[in-house]
């Protein structure tokens, strides 16, 4: 146990802090691209698909985590392919896959005898029940996200800026889009069992939304989003301990509060710059 002050003086709080910080630092890195691609709800929807995967795993009598990873990744790829095909808008593609996923989950879970006993445990973890192994799993996931984005981040930026030009330039547009979708699926499914789907999905979007209201560059926005994510985890976890609140929800509410503050600051700043009509 580390010699940290209250409210992080207990083992379970320190493990929660490690897992929370890993999510708070890595999820916004993915979210920076998702938000620009208008796929902010992709993380949340992966939870729906994971539900179908867990139910299928339980019904088949196999370990549900890899099955839910497979189902969520397949769903992510399907959404990307529908969006790419141009016949389905991004939000409609999300809705189609997610409702089908949750419906399949309900049907499969209904056929499974262990529905009540174990399905919720796989889907809705809590950051306060994190074990040492869980915490390192989330840290490893976070490091994986950082490593992948360090390689493909510039290409993803070029794609969110202008997909058609990126395609003409010969960049692997379809490859990085699919990789991003799968990265979301792996991160959500891997971390939701540990810290809860609410925390993972929200950390992909809210810190980014907050940061880009005041950021002066994309690089600055990403760095600030990570800072907001990490800071919200520390403050939210602390408040949850002090006032005996649910930690996941408290962290997300802190992030939302940061968004409101930064949005006001950003609006004031934009009011100063927006009238610029200089040629």
């Amino acid at each position, binding site marked *: 146990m580390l010699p940290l002050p209250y409210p992080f003086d207990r083992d379970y709080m320190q493990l929660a802090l490690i897992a929370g910080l890993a999510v708070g630092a890595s999820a916004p890195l993915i979210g920076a691209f998702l*938000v*620009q691609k208008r796929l902010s709800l992709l993380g949340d929807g992966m939870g729906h698909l994971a539900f179908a995967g867990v139910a299928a795993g339980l019904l088949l009598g196999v370990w549900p985590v890899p099955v839910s990873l497979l189902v969520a990744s397949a769903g992510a790829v399907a959404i990307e392919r529908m969006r790419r095909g141009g016949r389905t808008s991004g939000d409609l593609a999300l809705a189609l896959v997610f409702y089908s996923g949750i419906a399949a989950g309900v049907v499969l879970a209904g056929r499974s005898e262990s529905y009540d006993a174990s399905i919720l445990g796989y889907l809705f973890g809590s950051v306060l029940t994190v074990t040492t192994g869980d915490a390192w799993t989330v840290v490893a996931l976070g490091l994986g996200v950082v490593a992948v984005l360090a*390689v*493909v981040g*510039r*290409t993803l*930026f*070029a794609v*969110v*800026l*202008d997909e*058609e*030009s*990126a*395609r*003409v*330039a*010969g*960049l*692997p547009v379809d490859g*990085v889009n699919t990789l991003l979708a799968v990265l979301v699926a792996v991160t959500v499914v891997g971390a939701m069992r540990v810290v809860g789907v609410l925390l993972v999905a929200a950390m992909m979007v809210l810190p980014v*939304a907050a940061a*880009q*209201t005041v*950021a*002066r*560059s*994309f*690089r*600055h*926005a990403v760095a600030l989003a990570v800072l907001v994510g990490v800071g919200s985890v520390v403050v939210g976890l602390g408040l949850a301990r002090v006032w005996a609140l649910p930690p996941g929800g408290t962290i997300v509410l802190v992030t939302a509060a940061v968004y409101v503050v930064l949005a006001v600051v950003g609006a004031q700043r*934009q009011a100063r*710059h*927006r009238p*610029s*009509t*200089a*040629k």
Partner: protein
Amino acid sequence: MSAVLEADRVSYTYGVRDVSFSVAPGEFVALVGPNGAGKSTLLRLLLGLLDPTAGSVRLFGAAPRTLKDRWRLGYVPQRLAVPADLPATVEEVVAAGRLARTGWRRRFKPEDRAEIAHAITAVALDDLKDRPVRELSGGQQQRAFIAKALAGQPELLVLDEPVAGVDAESQERFRDSVVHNVREHGAAVLLVSHELGAVADDLDRIIVLRAGHVFFDGPPADLAARGVSLGVHSEDLPLWLEDL
């Protein structure tokens, strides 16, 4: 010298019929036509974003989708709307264009940084390079995207309606940057536009598309001989196109 771009009897399901023309290295060509003439479809066929139903397109001697050195082709799409919530700076946007040259794996070297700076200078945005693009005027934003295409040092620059609706100063800056690209780097330019006034004196050829096929292909002087003016303040060309 072989053509950088060749369209040979290109047709598409709708909009383009039996179109043939070529663009030589260093040539400055404008592609014009009234609304619905098939310009956008033809452009997508030339760039390899669509496959022709008949005929063939060659970019630097290769089919567009099999072209290996993609940096040789620079593309500026029709007026991009920069999302209001995207905080990218001019320099970040232009740097994204350099990926065409470096590929997605290689890190930028000092010479890449120098070319990015050079492209920003070519469109006269040095003073604004650290500003978020969303805070710039429409004309400045368009120049940033032209610099993005120039950052790859293309041998053929394709621009789709680059000055539509932008202010006069940005049109002038646009002309300077494109002419600089043609003269300093020897690059060819294919410009799709209704507004040729700013570049009227610099064009080598004009191709007029009507109802999906080539209606006119020749130097501006030949078009002028038909009584169509491309003068800086003239509205002759747009009016003439509307009457086609």
